[in-house]
Each structure stands twice: as structure tokens, then as C-alpha cells.
């Protein structure tokens, strides 16, 4: 220990050769079990807390009792993917990824400051407990409420199904001896890892053919046809016919460990969400957010010390990879001339993160659940501090990671944080458990995200569809039973969908996240501040925002526009003028909403007065 501390004191030089990678052993699995037990306990606590009020408001809105910490750390950080895919991007492309993420400097103030106070007020004045409830009551239109609910459920379903898959894969890889430590949402369906090549030999494929297939090592494929096409290029038509099935079988990522992981993950997350509803989702989110912060700060100290600091690490990377690693548009690991971050995309991302936060239905509902304006105010600076302490340190960690682990192959960059955790803690007492806790935090993030989506989708079906349109007189007992059945049903569907996941799921997830923002951001702003907004204006704003995104994705997938920026996938958007489709979605949604509202009959004055004007003071009764 003393030796280690002496070495730690010498920041600035490459002083410490890190030990060889060691397996995660039982540490990760123990940490995951701790997480699962803690989540169930949180669900039980939330169950106690929500019994103080009516079922619907307690289960779906936590009795509007969220405090500042809970609101700050859970309303805008929505996906475990923020922490899972992001480190891989920094490792792969270099410092320019700081530009990709930097709009998080204003996300706290925009996320709470643009709509927070007004949403909190309107939801109280209307008694709304869901976002569609709010649209319905503000515009006195059940049809608008139903449309909002259907659109939210559409977007959330894609995002949630992908999160189930991520949770299952993390569980699979946490198994001792699994040999892989990838922690990404973007998990390929087919990949020939080291164990895959061993399977090939077991299936009778000759050594000569295995050598020919080596270029495929660790390359991920979303669809079987893509893998077969690559095998065909390497082995020819005859070879493909002879060995195609064996290669596909060996590359298949969905084995029994995946299925067990999927089952355990689903059972856990559905159980604690059933127990504690909205509060359980928020509190597990808070729990993982705090753990994530502690993990990142600990890792920052360990990695910076071990690598000799970010300046030294950058200089080493620039010597090996060239100057693009330290500047825009970023290093291109494929060597095919792709630009990770041209200025137009950097500009786009200053919109994407900000307005995805403002327009996220799951974020809006959490703001509605805040105790009051004091909580919203405090959340702004608490989250500002949190973002400052977590995102820039993550960039520094991964830049330094390049010096410690310079040659992670393209298919394995998602494992940079797990690899660094294990390398830098292996010499510490209890290092395996410390590494396990750092590794388990993204698992917690995935669980929290799934439970949050479960609550929103169940509230959409039970509150916005069943209670509003099918049985308005449904009693508490019936609503409770229906909510539980809905969540269990969603869990079953998620399992079925993930046994054979659709291809290109990750790009669909990106489409869903930005699509939801393009659909709801402008309508929500008009709902809050514009008296003249009408039902027709809102419907057209929602549909035109969503439609713009769909059209740009269809055009992109058909080969329109530059193929050198953005995701390298068959399902991709058309970057019109080089900017992200979300910007066009927001623009079209705003213009359409304003024009159609002005062309249609204004809303009734009494509706507007109740929601926009001060309540008249009650007349004093003489004593």
C-alpha cells in the first residue's frame, strides 16, 4: 500500500505500469446482487410512502412529494446509456467528444428553468398526473390527450425494450469467467469473440478457415445477413455455403446466460416497480446516480495517477494516432474518412441534449411530481454541480485510459470503463468489490430507466386510455389490479421482444429519444405560455414534428445525404445541411403549431382565464 501511495504522488510522468488485466471474479456479481437487493428494499420503502394518498396519485406521481435531490438527479439524466456508450466514444474519437457532450453545461438550467415552474403549476390547477392528462385538460380535448398518450407509448416502447436487452447483457457478462466486460446498450446480435472462435473449432471448422475468419474478430453485426455477407467476402460462395451456419451459430450472442440474465433482470425490475411505482423508479435512479458519481470520482483519481495525467496521455495518443485525437472532427478509428463531429453536428448537439431534456415526457412528469418551486430552484444548481463533476471527469478518465490501454479493438471499446476499473483497483485491498461497484452502477442506471418507462407506459394505458375512455367510473381496486397486470404484461412482452431483438435497435432508440423531443417540446412550450394555442395547432405540431423525423430517417436510410457523418448503419437519418434531424423537427413543429393555431378558432376564454389568470380574491364576509 505504501509503495502504491508513493507512486501515486508522482503525477505527470508515466510512473506506474498497470498490472495485466484480471477477470472480474465474483466482485461484479456480488455488486449486482447488492444492487438487486437494494432495489427491492427501495421498492418496499416506496410502497410504504405511497400508501399515504390515493392509489393513482401515489403510484404514478409519488404524491407530488419529490425533493430537490431526487428531482435534480433523475429528471434529466434519463438513460443508462449516457454513461455506457459515452466513454467508448471518448476513447475512440478523443477530445472532440467533450464538444459532443458540452451542452450538459446548460441542461440543468434549461431542463428546469424553461418549463418547470409552469408545468408544476398547470398540473396542480388541472389535477393532471400524466403528460397526456395535462394536454387533455389544458385544451379540453380528450382526443388530444389520447394522441399524446399513444405517441408517448410508441416512443417509450422502443426505448424500453432496448434497455431490457442492455440489462440482460450486463448480467450475462457479470458472470465470473464470462471473459467480456462490455457495458453498452448497443449490443450486437452477432459477434465472433475469442470464445466464438473456440466454438468454431468445436464445430469442426478447420484451423485454416479459422485463420481466414480472423478479420471478423470482435466485429459486431446487427443482422445475420450482414455477417453472412462478410463471411462470403472472406471465404467465397463455396465457403459461405459450407461454413455459414457454423459461423452464425458461433457468433450468436443470445445464449442461455443471456436468457437467464433477461429473466432475472425482468423479474427484479418489474417486482420493485410493482411494489413502489413512480417513487421506486425515482429512488433507484437517485441511488444509482449517487453511486455513479462516487465511482467516477474514485476512478478519476486512480486513472489520472496511473496514466501520468491527461496531457501526457494526449501527447502519447497524438504520437500514435495523429493530431485529430486532440481536436475536431475527431479521430476516425475506421480509417475510412468518417467525420465524428464536424462543426455542424457540434452545433446540433447543443440543441439535441437541451431540447431532448425539455421535451422528454418522462422528465416532464417528474417535474410535475416536485414538491414546489423551491424544489425546482434547488434542483437547478444541484444538477449543475453533478454534471460538472461527472461529465468532464469521464472525458479525462477515458483520454487517460488511452494511455493505459492503448489498443482496445474497435468492437471492444465499450468495455473501457470496466477494463480501467479492474486494472486500477486490482492492487487495492478489496479491489474486486470496488471494481464490481463501479461496474454495477451502469446496471443500476438501466434498471432505473426501465422502471421509469414502465411507470409512464402503464400510466398511459391505465389512466389515459382505460380510465378516460373505457371505464371512467373504475374504482381504486380495479385500477390497482389493472396497473399491476399492465406492468407484468409489459415485462412479458419485453422478454419476448428480446429473445429475438430487432436489428438496428440502437439507432431506433436514438430515433425514439429525439423523435419524442421533436413531437412534444414545442407543444409543451405553447401549452405553458401561449394563450392562443389551439387543439388543432397542438395536433399539427405533434404530428408534423414526428413526421419530419420519420421522413428524414426514411430519406437517410435510402442513401440521401452525406454518408461520412453520423451513425454507420443501414437505418440512419438524412442530415439536411449537415445538422441533426431534431432541429428540423423542432422548427417544423413550431411553425406548424403557430400557423394552424392562428388559423383556427381560439380556445374558449373561460378555459384560458382559469389557467393563465390570477384567481380573484374571495370577497370578505363582514363579521
Amino acid at each position: 500500500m505504501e509503495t502504491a501511495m508513493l507512486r501515486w504522488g508522482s503525477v505527470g510522468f508515466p510512473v506506474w505500469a498497470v498490472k495485466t488485466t484480471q477477470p472480474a471474479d465474483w466482485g461484479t456479481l456480488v455488486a449486482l446482487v447488492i444492487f438487486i437487493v437494494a432495489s427491492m428494499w427501495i421498492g418496499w420503502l416506496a410502497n410504504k410512502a405511497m400508501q399515504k394518498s390515493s392509489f393513482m396519485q401515489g403510484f404514478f406521481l409519488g404524491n407530488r412529494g419529490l425533493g430537490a435531490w431526487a428531482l435534480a438527479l433523475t429528471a434529466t439524466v434519463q438513460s443508462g446509456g449516457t454513461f455506457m456508450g459515452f466513454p467508448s466514444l471518448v476513447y475512440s474519437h478523443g477530445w472532440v467528444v467533450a464538444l459532443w457532450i458540452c451542452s450538459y453545461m446548460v441542461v440543468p438550467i434549461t431542463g428546469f428553468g424553461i418549463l418547470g415552474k409552469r408545468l408544476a403549476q398547470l398540473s396542480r390547477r388541472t389535477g393532471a398526473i400524466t403528460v397526456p392528462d395535462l394536454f387533455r385538460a389544458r385544451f379540453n380535448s380528450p382526443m388530444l390527450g389520447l394522441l399524446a398518450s399513444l405517441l408517448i407509448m410508441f416512443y417509450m416502447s422502443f426505448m424500453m425494450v432496448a434497455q431490457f436487452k442492455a440489462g440482460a447483457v450486463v448480467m450475462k457478462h457479470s458472470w465470473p469467467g464470462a471473459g467480456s466486460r462490455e457495458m453498452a446498450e448497443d449490443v450486437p446480435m452477432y459477434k465472433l469473440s475469442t470464445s466464438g472462435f473456440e466454438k468454431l473449432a468445436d464445430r469442426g471448422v478447420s484451423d485454416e478457415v479459422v485463420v481466414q475468419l480472423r478479420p471478423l474478430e470482435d466485429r459486431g453485426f446487427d443482422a445475420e445477413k450482414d455477417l453472412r455477407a462478410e463471411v462470403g467476402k472472406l471465404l467465397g460462395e463455396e465457403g459461405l455455403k459450407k461454413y455459414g451456419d457454423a459461423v452464425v451459430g458461433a457468433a450468436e450472442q443470445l445464449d442461455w446466460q443471456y436468457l437467464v440474465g433477461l429473466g432475472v433482470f425482468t423479474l427484479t425490475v418489474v417486482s420493485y416497480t410493482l411494489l413502489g411505482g413512480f417513487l421506486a423508479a425515482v429512488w433507484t435512479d437517485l441511488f444509482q446516480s449517487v453511486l455513479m458519481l462516487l465511482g467516477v470520482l474514485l476512478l478519476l483519481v486512480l486513472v489520472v495517477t496511473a496514466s501520468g495525467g491527461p496531457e501526457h496521455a494526449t501527447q502519447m495518443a497524438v504520437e500514435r494516432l495523429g493530431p485529430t485525437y486532440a481536436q475536431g472532427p475527431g479521430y476516425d478509428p475506421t480509417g475510412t474518412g468518417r467525420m465524428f463531429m464536424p462543426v455542424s453536428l457540434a452545433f446540433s448537439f447543443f440543441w439535441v441534449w437541451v431540447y431532448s431534456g425539455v421535451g422528454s415526457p418522462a422528465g416532464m412528469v417528474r417535474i410535475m411530481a416536485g414538491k414546489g418551486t423551491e424544489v425546482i430552484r434547488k434542483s437547478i444548481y444541484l444538477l449543475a454541480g453533478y454534471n460538472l463533476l461527472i461529465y468532464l471527469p469521464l472525458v479525462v478518465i477515458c483520454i487517460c485510459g488511452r494511455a493505459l490501454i492503448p489498443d482496445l479493438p474497435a468492437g471492444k471499446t465499450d468495455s473501457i470503463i470496466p477494463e480501467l476499473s479492474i486494472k486500477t483497483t486490482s492492487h487495492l485491498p478489496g479491489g474486486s468489490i470496488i471494481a464490481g461497484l463501479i461496474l454495477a452502477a451502469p446496471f443500476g442506471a438501466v434498471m432505473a430507466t426501465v422502471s421509469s418507462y414502465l411507470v409512464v407506459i402503464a400510466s398511459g394505458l391505465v389512466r389515459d386510455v382505460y380510465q378516460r375512455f373505457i371505464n371512467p367510473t373504475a374504482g381504486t381496486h380495479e385500477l390497482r389490479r389493472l396497473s399491476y397486470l399492465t406492468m407484468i404484461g409489459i415485462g412479458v412482452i419485453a422478454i419476448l421482444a428480446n429473445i429475438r431483438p430487432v436489428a438496428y435497435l440502437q439507432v431506433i432508440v436514438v430515433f425514439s429519444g429525439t423523435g419524442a423531443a421533436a413531437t412534444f417540446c414545442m407543444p409543451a412550450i405553447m401549452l405553458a405560455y401561449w394563450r392562443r394555442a389551439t387543439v388543432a395547432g397542438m395536433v399539427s405540431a405533434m404530428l408534423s414534428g414526428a413526421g419530419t423525423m420519420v421522413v428524414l430517417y426514411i430519406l437517410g436510410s435510402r442513401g440521401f445525404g452525406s454518408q461520412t457523418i453520423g451513425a454507420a448503419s443501414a437505418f440512419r437519418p438524412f442530415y439536411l445541411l449537415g445538422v441533426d434531424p431534431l432541429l428540423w423537427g423542432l422548427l417544423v413543429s413550431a411553425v406548424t403549431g403557430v400557423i394552424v393555431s392562428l388559423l383556427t378558432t381560439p380556445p374558449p376564454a373561460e378555459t384560458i382565464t382559469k389557467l393563465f389568470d390570477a384567481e380573484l380574491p374571495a370577497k370578505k364576509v363582514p363579521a
Partner: protein
Amino acid sequence: MGRYTGGWLLIRMPDMSNEREDPALQSARREAWVVFAIWLLAMTYTIGYCSRYGYGREASDLKFVLGFPDWVFFGIVCPWVFCSVISLWFGATYMQDEDLGEELPEQEDELGLGG
């Protein structure tokens, strides 16, 4: 308080009087404009600075400040710290607390507006 009868070109706001506008709405709108301005300034500075100094540099030109490449330090780290301070100011002093009003009971039909 009658129906809107104007043609589509006549962009006027009948019945949209805001003489009695809710103070919470007024403060929320004012704060939203301030936030919008902060976002716009942060974006203009960061994207402007980084596009000028963060692209097309020679490796030999690269300078470091506190371990960060100079363009990252001045274009991203400094404004990030500044925005965090602004967020503290905004949340702690500028944004006003408001009475959000009594909550409508859940089982009641919202505002008596039907549906």
C-alpha cells in the same frame, strides 16, 4: 369575450387579455426568456470558440492548460464552470418562489371541462 371572427390574415388576439395574468406565469415566462438567453450565449461562445481553435490545428501548435488542450479548456471547461455558477445564481437568487395553488382533487373532472 365573444368568438373569434377575424380572417386568417388578421393576426389579433381577441379575448387574450393579460391584465389579470397570474404572477406565477409572469415570473415563469420572464425566467424562461433569461434561460433561453443563457443557452444561446453559451452555444454561441462554445461553438464559435471551438470551431475557431479546435479544428485544423497542427500537432506542434497544441498547447495544454491544466492538462486540457487549450481549446477544450477555454472553449468548454471555462464556460462549463461559468454556467454552473450562473445556475447557482439563477436557482439560489433569481428564480422566484411562487404559490402554485391548491391541487384539484384527482377524482374531480379537471376544471369541469368535460372529457
